[in-house]
């Protein structure tokens, strides 16, 4: 298990070296987008319009932060469950998205898209929202303000701690449940 420090925008070379299980500290700019924001992004693509941020080399963080209390750039900001974005992810990867950040399993089409487009899926620790917010130094809503917690934010991160769950070579980190040991064939 290797450890890397990476900066955005991410490149094919950055992604190709990563293997499931590697630890990455990410610095630069990432974009929050979750359920409703993804629908709006895809609607923009269908209409041939420009997206509010450049997909090429980008990382999308599946997060809906809690409101920022006075004196902090953001509230708690841990990952949300990623499978809900699987219906959108392959298309976004095909357009240059290099990484998604969330928690939980991805479907086969999304895993295949990572292989086809040299991209990865990072896990962040679910439920550690307060702790992860410490790595976010600045946050600005750049689109879909009306979505509240689901608005798209440009977030400046410093050494954001991530774990490679799915790499661009078909590797996956998640444990396979041992049904036999649990007494179910």
């Amino acid at each position, binding site marked *: 298990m290797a450890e890397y420090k990476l900066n955005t925008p991410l490149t094919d070379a950055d992604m190709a070296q990563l293997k499931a299980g590697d630890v990455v500290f990410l610095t630069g700019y990432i974009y929050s987008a979750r359920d409703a924001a993804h629908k709006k992004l895809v609607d923009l693509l269908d209409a041939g319009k420009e997206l509010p941020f450049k997909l090429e080399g980008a990382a999308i963080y599946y997060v809906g932060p809690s409101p920022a209390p006075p004196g902090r750039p953001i509230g708690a900001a841990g990952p949300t469950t990623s499978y809900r974005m699987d219906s959108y992810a392959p298309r976004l990867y095909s357009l240059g998205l290099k990484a998604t950040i969330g928690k*939980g*399993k991805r479907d086969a089409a999304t895993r295949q898209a990572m292989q086809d487009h040299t991209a990865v899926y990072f896990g962040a*620790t679910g*439920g*550690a929202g*307060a702790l992860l917010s410490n790595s976010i130094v600045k946050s600005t809503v750049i689109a879909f303000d009306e979505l509240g917690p*689901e608005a798209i934010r440009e977030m400046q991160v410093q050494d954001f701690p991530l774990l490679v769950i799915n790499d661009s070579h078909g590797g996956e980190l998640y444990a396979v449940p041992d049904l036999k040991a*649990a*007494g*179910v064939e």
Partner: protein
Amino acid sequence: MRTIKTSDIVDAVADMCIKANTELPDDVRAKLEQAMAEETSASAKEVLRQLLENADLSAKTKLPLCQDCGLAVYFVEIGQDVHVDGNLDEAINEGTRKGYADGYLRKSACNPLTRANTGDGTPAVIHYDFVPGDKLKIVYMAKGGGAENMSRVTMLAPAQGWEGIKKFVIKRVAEAGPNPCPPTVIGIGVGGTFDHAAKIAKKALIRRLDDTHPDPEIAAKEQELEDALNSLGIGPMGLGGKTTVLSVKLAMEPCHLASLPLAVNVQCHSQRHEEVVL
């Protein structure tokens, strides 16, 4: 007849919303510490360490433990000799609005189809029970979406019995895998009707993690399920390990002779809830 002021209810509810979202319960902390001592894999230990550090940080900064501050769920026990000087339902919702606003908690209630956010964390889901006495007990639970989505209700055939229940629960937790932020707490409702099984499964989640069910037969079944689920090897955040669940809570009630209703309510590791007695 004792009168309780709605203004007292509003304040008590708001305080509970904030406290539950920023302070990890003692019993949960103890279970996480115990799990960290027992885990042998480095990644499992690291996840548990982060969760404990997260709790310390929340207590210090008052940032919510998790950005998903849940849909507000309440279990209310109303003493038969209590009179509320206004609308109890509205007081609980008003307390929710106040708590979610004052505590900088995320408001996650939205229209199911348009997905438009209601903007204030309401309406809450409130379950009422009447009990003897002149007290009003309100339990608040922050029910996050990630774990709730992994929950299921099913109607088994009576012949499937305990083995069928066990199999369904194990398969559900296995299928959920890393999605609900394991280690989880599993509330199981067996009996009643389709809806009632779900309600008692959820209510089971407000028990302390370190308690033992007063019925020794049910306590043994809870342990049997806990052992089976922890042998799945899913581990903290699905990275492998001995701790897939922190606890299993089982509620059983009689059902129709044709039915065997079963509900599995998955709750995330932080098990956020609070109670107040007025």
